[in-house]
């Protein structure tokens, strides 16, 4: 089961079991000196959630449509992180047979984050490796 989300037109999926919450646009406190990908932190019912901007993380241009980002809150290693995406879609059950390995031409950075590609009708869905996404170096 995957939750689909869109980052700069690209359809991505994260395992629904690791998702704790999906939030609309949030007030995000910037964190000085933090890695570029860290957008800041936000308050989720009393817990502090670190927001990681997927666009920045995936090496995509910054959002310029003036709209805020949606938060997909995931839990990794007991910590909550919010993955900032442009849009959040639906929950899909994916057929394992439709899954293909990363094409060799895929951007090297993406290869690290992608667990594979799903053919989904006329669209391609990149399966994101949440843990790898959150391995941010200083």
């Amino acid at each position, binding site marked *: 089961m995957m939750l689909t989300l869109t980052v700069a037109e690209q359809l991505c999926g994260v395992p629904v079991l690791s998702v704790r919450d999906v939030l609309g646009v949030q*007030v995000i*406190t*910037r*964190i*000085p*000196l*933090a*890695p570029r990908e*860290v957008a*800041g*932190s*936000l*308050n989720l019912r*009393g817990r*502090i959630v*670190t927001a*990681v901007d997927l666009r920045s993380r995936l090496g995509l241009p910054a959002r310029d449509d003036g709209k805020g980002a949606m938060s997909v809150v995931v839990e990794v*290693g007991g*910590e909550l*992180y919010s993955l900032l995406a442009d849009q959040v879609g639906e929950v899909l059950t994916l057929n394992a047979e439709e899954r293909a390995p990363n094409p060799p031409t895929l951007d090297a950075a993406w290869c690290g984050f992608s667990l594979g590609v799903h053919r989904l009708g006329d669209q391609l869905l990149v399966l994101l490796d949440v843990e790898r996404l*959150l*391995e*941010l170096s*200083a």
Partner: protein
Amino acid sequence: MDDLLADFLTETNEGLARLDEALLQLEKEPSSRGVLSEIFRTVHTIKGTCGFLGLPRLEGVAHAAENVLGLWREGTLAVTQEGVTLILSAADRIKQIVAGLEATGQEPAGDDTPLKAALDAAALGEALPEEGDHEPILAEEEAPPADAPLAASPEGAGAGGQAPQTIRVAVEVLEDLMVLVSELVLTRNQLLQLARSESNAAFAVPLQRLSQITSDLQDGVMKTRMQPIGHAWSKLPRLVRDLSRDLGKRIELDMRGAETELDRQVLELIKDPLTHMVRNSADHGLETPEQRRAAGKGETGRILLNAFHEGGHIVLEIGDDGRGLNTDRIKAKALSQGLATETELAAMNDRDVHRFIFRAGFSTAAEVTSVSGRGVGMDVVKTNIERIGGIVDLRSREHRGTTFTIKIPLTLAIAAALIVEAGGERFAIPQAGVLELVRVGPGKGPKVEKIKEARVMRLRDQLLPLIPLKSLLRLEAEPGQSDAEGFVVVTQVGAQLFGIVVDRVFDTEEIVVKPVAPILRHITMFSGNTILGDGSVIMILDPNGIARATGLGSEAASDHAVRKEEPRGGMLARQTSLLLFRAGEGAPKAVPLSLVARLENLKAGSIERAGDSLVTQYRGNLMPLVPLHSFMSPPEAGHQAVLVFGDGDRAMGLMVDEILDVVDAALDMDAAGVRPGFLGSCVVAGRVTEILDTGFWLKQGQPDWFEPLAATGARPSLLVVEDSDFFRNLIVPAVMAAGYDVTTVPNGREALRLREAGERFDVIVSDINMPELDGLGLARAVREGGIWAEVPMIALSSRSDPRDVERGRAAGFSDYIAKFDREALLTSLQQCLHPALAR
């Protein structure tokens, strides 16, 4: 009852409760290794602990039972029903003895020989099924039932009558409670914030009440988790004693800040690393008496344990005054292990080289000793400490010693914080580190000034280094915001004062420090983050991290202990904690609290007469007791209040009528109406109080302690450099009473810091053996130049043979006198100040 014994009983009772069950289960499934192991462990623990507590009966029975269980566990002996019965009866016997212990605090009398013999026979294996040996076992089994009613009744009473004063709660439960309370506090804060903007008064009162209760609850829950660090240290004196005997070294263990409270869980986790480090200090750090003598140090090595809170952290220092790390040897080893190249090593400073000892598998000990060379290296210590979010570091100087510093964050602390704004972002600064707030701006008042790029501010007489938060955190300046306008948060880290420049200052708020996400943990500027009353997330600034990042106070931790004792240089010497007590007629008496080692309430019966004097047995020694006035005699019955003065092995008790209070007061003494035994009187808590001349009374108890004094003078200023609290406190009242203005510092380095600060003194009195910078080093540094170059210096030392005196003079001391000779000190002071008069 002894704390240890009480703990033991609680534990043993828990173990025994499980033991029966487990034994019965074992009978059903004799092959279950898990059950057998559990039984073995329980019995083994009982045996081990009671050996330690000196409970021979219990130990004997547990030992015999353990033998049998051990063989079962190994598989050497088959588990039989008879065997289980035997172990059960041993368990019964243990219960019986434990019940007796609980009731009386002593092991009840009784004979366990038949039971032990039966167990031993069972351990021999074949003997068990034999009829001949079986009989006594059965006979033995008859015996417990006869005892049983006896045993049962105290046990029953134990359960019903004296309910246990403590209960054990799983740490998890406390942990959950803490989390809930933290959330409650945050919610309360949000409510308060809402209420502030609402004018609906109906909520005000209940909200106030809710707020109060929340605070109390928070305190309560915090308390359940806190334990003084002394608990983790309790076994160290014994360890050090044994080590000093095994290693043939003379070691003194100095523990400071034992009352510093620490989260229980953290405490448990640091116990082992701490023990390991103390072991290391004793084994590798300290030298043998011969080596120390050869190095010109006192024979007794010193291990100092120090704990204190620092800005939301607990800092632990484990230091010794031993040989220090051998930098060259570490370099050689690092090279041979391929950890660094020659070029890299050459570029490293000593401190970085020393840090190699934290690498896995790194040990420079020439030989592996039984004490610390067990393959558990400093790397394990480091890993364990880092696992709980701590930092470990060390400082070492060859021949001076090594000090390890462990810094553990209080991840769950609730603290007051100042909310500030810089570059449009808000931050929290823990209030504990904030000394004052200064508004800076154009016009009159303090200004931010620049020396090249460095910003400073003149604060009273000091030049305060400033750190603009905006540039530190690389925040863009808001347009129109002038750099020279804003607030300076004056902060202290270690001995270093600095100012953090912010744009705006808001309220203070109670915050729950939450650790930052792992991906942000490398930013040392923040100690955590929190949620404010308005629901927004805010980063908590860490003044220590800021100081480190900007190169300020890099030796912060090392200076801290000093700062705690002397926060304002000479000011502390004026404000002294006094113990007030009553003895005989007239004014209350007082003595500087720091001079008193302990307060005791001795039972009348424990006071004995030896010749003309009174003595009592105290901690394994005879301690002389001195009545404070001649017509005071020990009580026939009841208790006698005694102030115990002690210095290492020597102790003396002063009998007083009643201990009244402890107050902080200025020791501004008036020598009017001085009589023997008192330094004079001063006004304490609104009453004229006589200040005890401790020296006089110590001499009464032990005539060889030192000589008393009575002298007066002008008010020349005196700098006393002395690391021992005891002697420092002894010198200070004496010289103050003699009319000197006294400033004290614990070592030469601190003294030089005062020189740098431009402080002037008429005379410097210095100890010789001190950590950091010793007396000789200080004298040399003073004579080298600077404002103190001409100031007379008097060395105080316990060693005063001509060679030492010569060394002292060569280093630049004007005079060299024995440590306890106050008369000589005062004479020498007089001579230094009025050389013409004296001649």
